[in-house]
């Protein structure tokens, strides 16, 4: 089966010759599959999603490697063509529902944006589609919500709106960047369930970025564990959470608190594990020259 998304040897750095934020990252996601990206802060997990969508912050750029989406190398496409392709086929669900909706625009327009301006739908059809989607994410009065401004609806509702907006154009891939980190656990569960349902129904591939080993375990069949911009472990969840994880992945799992086995959780990451990783990273950096 050919992958929908395949990343090969991706290097991202601050400025030319500056520090690397991603180090030779490779991964692939098949159509309809869910892949998890886990790591602690600074591991570069969000950077991968930003590199795919082409929204890296100023001054940070892809230095080498390929991002193959449906067989096309995104990094080699002209800027306009790339924007169009990403606009049509890839969507993002961001972390913070508070800052992810433009406070000055009505919600409806923010859902239909992509349909009207990128796909060229007429306004009526786009609005009908938006209403349909809001209905799908269990928002009861789609008409009223579309007329509302973001501050007029609750936080949980805003996150649903963002999910609806992400699925609006039937993208092939959705990048979810810590979409539940700001939420309470009970709400988190509803939102995860919603994403899962929509994903199954629409056959969308999902790249799920999170720091929470628990969430990955429940949501993803396969995952990549990152440390300092480097993939240290990659494979099926059944292996990594089961018999044969990389020592760092094992340590992250053991550090996660769990109410069912309190004495075996919250284990600090052994210093030897970190030291070994740091040595690996340093060795890789010695060999790397800015292409």
């Amino acid at each position, binding site marked *: 089966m050919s992958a929908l998304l395949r990343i090969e040897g991706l290097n991202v750095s601050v400025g030319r010759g500056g520090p690397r934020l991603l180090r030779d990252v490779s991964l692939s996601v098949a159509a309809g599959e869910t892949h998890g990206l886990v790591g602690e802060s600074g591991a570069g997990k969000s950077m991968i999603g930003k590199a795919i969508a082409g929204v890296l912050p100023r001054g940070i750029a892809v230095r080498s490697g390929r991002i193959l989406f449906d067989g096309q190398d995104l990094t080699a496409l002209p800027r306009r063509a790339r924007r169009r392709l990403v606009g049509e086929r890839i969507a993002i669900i961001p972390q913070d529902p508070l800052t992810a909706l433009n406070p000055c625009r009505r919600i409806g327009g923010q859902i239909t944006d992509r349909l009207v301006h990128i796909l060229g739908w007429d306004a009526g059809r786009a609005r009908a589609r938006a209403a349909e989607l809001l209905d799908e994410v269990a928002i009861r009065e789609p008409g009223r919500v579309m007329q509302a401004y973001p501050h007029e609806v609750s936080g949980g509702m805003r996150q649903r709106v963002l999910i609806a907006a992400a699925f609006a154009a039937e993208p092939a891939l959705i990048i979810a960047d810590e979409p539940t980190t700001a939420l309470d656990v009970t709400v988190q569960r509803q939102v995860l369930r919603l994403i899962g349902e929509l994903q199954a129904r629409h056959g969308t591939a999902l790249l799920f970025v999170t720091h929470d080993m628990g969430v990955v375990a429940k949501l993803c069949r396969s995952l990549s564990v990152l440390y300092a911009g480097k993939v240290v472990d990659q494979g099926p969840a059944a292996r990594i959470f089961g018999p044969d994880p990389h020592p760092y992945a094992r340590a992250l799992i053991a*550090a996660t*608190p769990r109410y069912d086995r309190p004495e075996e959780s919250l284990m600090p990451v052994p210093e030897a594990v970190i030291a070994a990783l740091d040595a690996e990273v340093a060795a890789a950096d010695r060999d790397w020259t800015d292409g």
Partner: protein
Amino acid sequence: MAEPLIEARDLRLALPDLNARPLFGAAPRVEILKGLSFDVARGRVLGIVGESGSGKSTLGRCLVRLLEPTGGTLRFDGDDITHADTRALKRHRRDLQMIFQDPMSSLNPRHSVLRLVEAPMRLYGVANAEDRAREVLERVQLGGAFARRYPHQLSGGQRQRVGIARALALSPRFILADEIVSGLDVSTQAQIIRLLERLVDEMDLTLAFISHDLSVIRRLCHEVIVLRAGEIVEAGPTAEVFAAPKHPYTAELKAAIPLPDPDAGWLSQP
């Protein structure tokens, strides 16, 4: 059994509603704490758990009297401190300490680590304040050169250790820890919790630990109260509450926690 260190009876707090500001007269008040009764026993760790809007941080600030309750009584070591003014509180201040959620905002950026930890001791004229401060810093594994650094030069975990050291500086009889690991990575969180656990053992601390994370509470706390919308829905020894939650809300909270075990069925469970 001995008298509890802190005794809250029907504790209430109402604050003016900032969203509704009528043209005339006082703003209507919203009840944030709706009559809470519980004890913190000496040498024990009480967990206070709840989701956003449950009032757990407000309750914390009442316990150390940063806020004044508007109803009920709050006793510390037998003394009624519900409405005690600054002067009356002065006696108890050094025994009621707090560790804040956000160390970046709770550590004055212009003071060095040593000065931050020393300040409370100097205020109470403790002898050899500097040596004592270094000792306390040693206890939280921030010995040596750390004393001279400033908050912005530290990592999140290190800053939180400074917060802990400052709270320990006066050897208080009660410490409130308000969401002190919520902004940290799991590996750092594990270190801080371990440290706190050790300190509780070694120094026989009495602690109230506020958190939204049931798993952390389960590990650290002897007793727990579960808060929802300003009311206690369940209280009891942690092990018992977890083994058999009596209130459906507690059970719901517990079920919503994703444990790090692969389980595709978890999402679709009711």
